């Protein structure tokens, strides 16, 4: 999905001056925990967040995030914008809440970052054990 399309779906606005709205995002994630972003995102991801400090841009740079969307119509402070412009990471603002922003984009077919699946795989075993126990207790 092109950034221009993201903007129109979120009825948002572009914050940084220079940005190529033809740039493609392959998937998206919504997070306010930067460690989660570092842990789970792929290169080519669109990040939606409610945090507006410069560390969001740092995190995006490290994780290979294509662009950042600030939800709930929030606008970041100048230092965040300055760092984003230096690192050529487009900043966008969404008119909607985190939940609705994600929902709107997901509905258009933009997938979630695949790496989250890995954590899910890790607890499938534990989950199976739980289900088994629940079944046993129901039997009793």
């Amino acid at each position, binding site marked *: 999905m092109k950034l221009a399309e993201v903007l129109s779906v979120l009825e948002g606005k572009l914050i940084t001056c220079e940005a190529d709205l033809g740039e493609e995002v392959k998937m998206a994630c919504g997070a*306010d*925990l*930067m*460690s*989660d972003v*570092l*842990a789970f995102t792929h*290169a080519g991801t669109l990040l939606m*967040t409610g*945090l507006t*400090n*410069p*560390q*969001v841009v*740092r*995190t995006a*740079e*490290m*994780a*290979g995030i294509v662009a950042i969307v600030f939800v709930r119509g929030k606008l970041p402070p100048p*230092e965040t914008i300055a760092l984003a412009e230096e*690192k050529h990471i487009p900043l966008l603002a969404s008119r909607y809440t985190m939940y609705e922003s994600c929902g709107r984009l997901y509905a258009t077919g933009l997938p979630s970052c695949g790496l989250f699946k890995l954590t899910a795989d890790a607890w499938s075993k534990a989950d199976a054990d739980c289900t088994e126990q629940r079944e046993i207790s129901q039997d009793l």
Partner: protein
Amino acid sequence: MELKTPADTSAAPSRSCLEVTKLQELVYELKIEQVMTKKVLTVSPDEPISRLKELLRINRISGAPVLKDGELVGIISIEDVLKALEKGEISATVAEKMTRDVQTLFSDESVIQAVTKFGRLGFGRLPVVNRDGKLVGILTQGDIARGLLRQLELDYREEEIHRYRASHIFEDIVSDQTGLILRYQVKARDFSRCGEAASKLKRALERLGAMPAEVRRVAVVSYEAETNLVIHATSGGELLAEIQPEKIRIIAVDRGPGIADTEKALQPGYSTAPDWIRELGFGAGMGLNNIKACSDQFRLESKLGVGTRLEVVIQL
């Protein structure tokens, strides 16, 4: 004849802006003193035309400035000599035949001034003076062309050097074990600059030609480690990266406060970070886990009151 109306030129201003050639740029950038001939053959006003003719012939030049007591008083060209010869005035002096109203250029003007002046006046050469009016050189259109070509060549060579990727370093420098060590000092509590070291390291790896996936792992490890130094280390610390052709070792060292229980610190979600850090989106007890997940070797050593040393190896 084709006349250019103002409308013609204003039709595509942005396009003409973009199409400024390197040469056009240079004409504005280069100063006249960079392209002029500094060694100037001058003549005295008392010199007879017959002698001047020989001077021009021997030195293969077509004109010379005329100096009297070090002051520029005129200019004389081969054309003036020819005219004098035609009239049979071979024994006349330079002073009688020279052009007195001399057009000059300033040495600190850009070459474009010279180009314009040559175009307007149609002269073959113009003396160059400094702001005190002293003659410092002479300029012909040939000098301009040569100067531009020389500068183009210099720029080209510089670009070649710039294009020389740092990735050759490991092929060019041979030893039994070549490593590149990058050290970054990390300040305590300075959250606004947190990530600068990791950012520089990431860029260095990109320049060295590392694969994007590996660069990402190194970036995450170093950024998390840097964040830990900023948040926890009492007096900051050092982030060190040793880059080898097939692996990179990242070491983060600080001098306290140290971790009471490293086992516990490695549990996902365990954190001692203060609230102000959490508000910034960090300190959720994921950092060390992230580092471990991205590394091939992981070692965390700490002693309360002494300090912490984190060593990580990432295979490239």
